């Protein structure tokens, strides 16, 4: 009997944590749409949404309501199953990556230690890469199922972009792994907690990762998959109402997760300077640490938006040239130098 007993508290704790992380990423994604419009407006000397609620804070709800009530059209010649599968995959994949990010240190509640990480797996980064590369299927299936040549072309373009930029991203991360010696995100954060942040050791690696993250999230200047004004509408050309909303929403979740990921891997995650010399209780530190990670993440999201309203979009050949001829060699060189330094330190 005892052998089969299940630790119910553990399951409840994890279910609560998963729901909390999911709700957090959905809310952040919702308000990113509001933030995006606000930042865009401010940069263009406008005010932005300010009619729905105070400061326009109810705008995301209004947008969501609009998307739900819009007419839903599935083209006659589209493959219905695939057509619905596309946005579902995009949304699911976007939500899955949050599982391995350590949102904070351990909390001690009534004698139980609760980790603020859904799964501390020792292959954390590999998991993220595996899941993120699944995102291509969402885009490919979305474009293919529409049975429209333009969507298909756009989705091929998008898929090749995402695959091209995944290479330098992985190479940049390998250099980081050489330094930290672990794939677990929790351990990477803990190493930064007692030392310097990884961005100090890996400035070039961070920069490459940042550029690739922009490309992976389809954000400007890499937003070819949805360049509606000079290319066609993109892989979601045929989509309407909430299915389009899912594609766009998944993109904002991706932006949030990749911001959190960059904060975790290069900017100390939930660690903040002098956190161990403040003399606060561990629980207090965990809460503060979560806030620190959240602020870092929001700053990255702001960076995404800031860049969007500054830099124009790449041409497709420029995009490919940057990925293959600049970023991959740079990432390789970065890896080589890091390896040499690590080797020199050992001897």
């Amino acid at each position, binding site marked *: 009997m005892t052998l089969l007993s299940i630790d119910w508290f553990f399951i409840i704790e994890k279910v609560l944590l998963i729901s909390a992380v999911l709700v957090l990423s959905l809310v952040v994604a919702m308000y990113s749409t509001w933030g995006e419009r606000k*930042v865009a*407006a*401010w*940069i*263009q*000397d*406008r*005010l932005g949404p*300010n009619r729905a609620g105070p400061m326009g804070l109810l705008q995301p709800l209004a947008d969501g309501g609009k998307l739900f009530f819009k007419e839903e059209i599935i083209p006659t010649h589209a493959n219905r199953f695939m057509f619905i599968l596309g946005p579902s995959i995009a949304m699911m994949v976007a939500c899955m990556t949050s599982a391995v990010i350590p949102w904070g240190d351990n909390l001690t509640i009534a004698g139980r230690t609760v980790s603020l990480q859904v799964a501390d797996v020792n292959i954390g980064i590999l998991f993220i890469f595996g899941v993120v590369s699944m995102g291509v299927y969402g885009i490919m299936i979305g474009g293919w199922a529409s049975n429209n040549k333009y969507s298909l072309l756009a989705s091929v373009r998008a898929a090749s972009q995402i695959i091209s930029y995944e290479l330098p991203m992985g190479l940049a991360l390998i250099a980081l792994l050489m330094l930290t010696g672990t794939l677990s995100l929790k351990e990477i954060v803990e190493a930064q907690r007692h030392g310097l942040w990884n961005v100090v050791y890996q400035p070039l690696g961070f920069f490459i990762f940042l550029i690739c993250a922009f490309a992976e999230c389809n954000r400007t200047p890499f937003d070819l998959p949805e360049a509606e004004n000079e290319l066609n509408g993109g892989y979601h050309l045929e989509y309407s109402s909430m299915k389009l909303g899912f594609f766009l929403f998944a993109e904002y979740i991706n932006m949030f997760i990749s911001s959190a990921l960059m904060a975790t891997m290069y900017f100390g995650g939930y660690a903040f300077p002098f956190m161990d010399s403040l003399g606060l209780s561990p629980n207090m530190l965990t809460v503060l640490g979560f806030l620190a990670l959240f602020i870092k993440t929001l700053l990255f999201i702001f960076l995404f938006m*800031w*860049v969007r*309203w*500054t*830099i124009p979009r790449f041409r497709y050949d420029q995009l490919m040239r940057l990925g293959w001829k600049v970023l991959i060699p740079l990432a390789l060189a970065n890896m080589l130098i890091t390896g040499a330094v690590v080797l020199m330190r050992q001897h």
Partner: protein
Amino acid sequence: MQALTNRAKAVDRRPMTFMEKLYIPAIAKGMSITMKHLFQRKATVSFPEKKRDFSPVFRGLHVLNRDEEGRERCTACGLCAVACPAEAITMEAAERLPGEENLYREEKYAAKYEINMLRCIFCGFCEEACPKDAVYMSETFAPANYQRKGFIYGKDDLLIPHPKEQGK
């Protein structure tokens, strides 16, 4: 060739130097510019709450003026209609009857006075042509309407309120 303005600039077609090829300084410069705009004064006017002042020479919707005692100034001379390049103004004259001296200033008055706001080009010639200072252009727009006939403004739309009866 001589430049027409002193703003002409020769295009630099030299190949980019290494620093320029890095793009990073240019991107940083661009981002500092956008960041500066984040804190600049916004050009937006929150319209229904805040109305922007018109320029003093703005030519908006017409009004038919009255004199100090509230009598209509217009004598239906037709000069405004003649001056109108869009032929938007039509009127019919009538003779003042005894006992109507408090209504119309002169012996002749406009029984019907119409301006077609769809034709009007707001040039202000009517205002200039009027010898009696009767037609003026105010600082308001013609409000939207669902039907074309709604844009034909009659006397009840154009006449300004009576200065003495206004308070009632």
